[in-house]
């Protein structure tokens, strides 16, 4: 049995060798800095120069003292849910077409084409959406050109504009991660099910979704998590409607010098996101089987 222990030890060494570069890098550049921020979130003042500070919980209790924070956090979570749902509903079928209906070289090319628009600046893209969505804008002119009756299309400064902009920004994550999982499903498995008379929704529900779940979920997480904290797209596209939880955090850093409160709000956001993911994962796992 001594051989078994040796194998376990070399496995441990291998695991360590593979993991440590990435995690040491993350520790130095993200975990330690964020720990400093976490520390600040318990202080009255940022300890710069000779600023006087003491330890406090007021930054966290502030969240519960005003309904503004919790209301906007709920609004942000709902936005995250909407955008994620739309990305999944739009992106998954798209990945299916790419993985199962397109053959040969065209598939590689299309795979790259999906991500290419994102090798541009997000701010430039958001401003382009503003040009499309505003009254008298590109969409308005387009609709009026093909529609015989006079209509006014002005989506800018509405929740619709925010959702369109965000779905656009995050759709590639769902398409590509779903593609990675769908492409791995053996066609013969689906053929076998079909020849046994299974209906398409049975195949989807019993074979395709469970097998592609890792990719689809990874994509959904990569959409949901950052969208809850977003503030740039909401502000530019949402106008008066564009105040979200991320806006509150940003203001603490940009408008006033209240890093402790800003940091506390960020960690509350992180905690809520992790709780949602923790609650969702067993439900989704059960749905898979």
């Amino acid at each position, binding site marked *: 049995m001594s051989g078994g222990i040796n194998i376990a030890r070399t496995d441990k060494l291998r695991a360590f060798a593979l993991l440590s570069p990435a995690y040491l890098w993350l520790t130095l550049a993200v975990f330690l800095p964020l720990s400093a921020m976490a520390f600040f979130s318990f202080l009255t003042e940022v300890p710069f120069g000779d600023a006087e500070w003491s330890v406090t919980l007021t930054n966290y209790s502030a969240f519960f003292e005003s309904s503004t924070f919790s209301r906007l956090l709920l609004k942000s979570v709902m936005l995250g849910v909407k955008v994620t749902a739309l990305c999944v509903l739009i992106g998954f079928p798209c990945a299916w077409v790419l993985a199962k209906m397109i053959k040969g070289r065209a598939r590689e090319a299309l795979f790259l084409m999906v991500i290419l628009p994102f*090798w541009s600046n997000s701010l430039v893209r958001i401003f382009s959406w503003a040009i499309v969505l505003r009254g008298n804008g590109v969409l308005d002119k387009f609709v009026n050109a093909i529609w015989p009756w006079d209509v006014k299309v002005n989506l800018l400064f509405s929740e619709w504009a925010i959702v369109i902009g965000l779905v656009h920004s995050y759709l590639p994550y769902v398409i590509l991660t779903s593609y990675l999982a769908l492409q791995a499903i053996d066609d013969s498995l689906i053929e076998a099910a079909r020849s046994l008379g299974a209906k398409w929704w049975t195949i989807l529900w019993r074979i395709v979704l469970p097998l592609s779940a890792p990719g689809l979920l990874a994509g959904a997480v990569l959409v949901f998590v950052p969208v809850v904290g977003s503030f740039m797209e909401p502000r530019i596209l949402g106008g008066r409607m564009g105040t979200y939880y991320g806006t509150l955090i940003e203001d603490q850093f940009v408008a006033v010098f209240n890093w402790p409160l800003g940091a506390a709000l960020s960690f509350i956001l992180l905690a809520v996101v992790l709780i949602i993911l923790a609650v969702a994962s067993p439900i989704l796992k059960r749905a898979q089987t």
Partner: protein
Amino acid sequence: MKAQLRTRVTTGIGIFYLSSILFFLYAPILVMAAMSFNASEFYQLPFQFSTQWYERMWENEAILSAAWRSIWIAIVTTVFATALGTAASVALWRYDFPGKRILQVLLFPPIAIPWLITGTAMLIFFFGVGIGRGTPAVILGHVALALPYVIVVVTARLATFDRTLEEAARSLGARPWMVTRRVMLPWIAPGVIAGALFAFAVSFDQFVISYFLSEPGDSTLPVLIYTAIRKGFTPEINAISTIIIAVSMVVMLTAARFTKFGGEK
């Protein structure tokens, strides 16, 4: 005969659907490109053709050098993040060890916490421990933010890998490294490519970290855009972005022509 027809029809619908999604994805890029040829500085319609923004961009050393800097920083970031992230993903997938869940959960903070806060934290920390600022600090930050994306994407692909394949290869006497190189890497290649593409996108669009950690005068394109916004940026920005997208497209489609990475079959 009937089944064949039906397959044809569904494929047709599928391709139509895929094209509409691509149109949606490219809509703002087309507008961006169109505005680079529009005379109005305020992005005003109706459209009036002009190449003045390209001419001005060509004279604008600040934009050109910032664009070049953004590109090479993104390439360096992509190489590091993809290599480190893929290695970590393989370990997370293959081995079971105490604390694995924690390592996976730790990937979420950098994605969930807005970059503004993470960037500020980095600035304070790097300043505190003496790393200071400059290009190495910028790359340190970019790679760290791109890593979680690479790990999540590559892990998603690994989850579809059939462990028995690896075991079969091992039982046939292949050494672990050979198994990894010949069996696993080809399988996860599409995931690694996707991870690399995202890493590039993350770095190329990253503003806060470059902004806080660059030396004065060493702008990247996002920094140039964000600091110009207060006084208003001109369609020169559209012009350089259009050129970058166009060149990337040519390079990528050429690469797609000669390699096969979308997965076997």
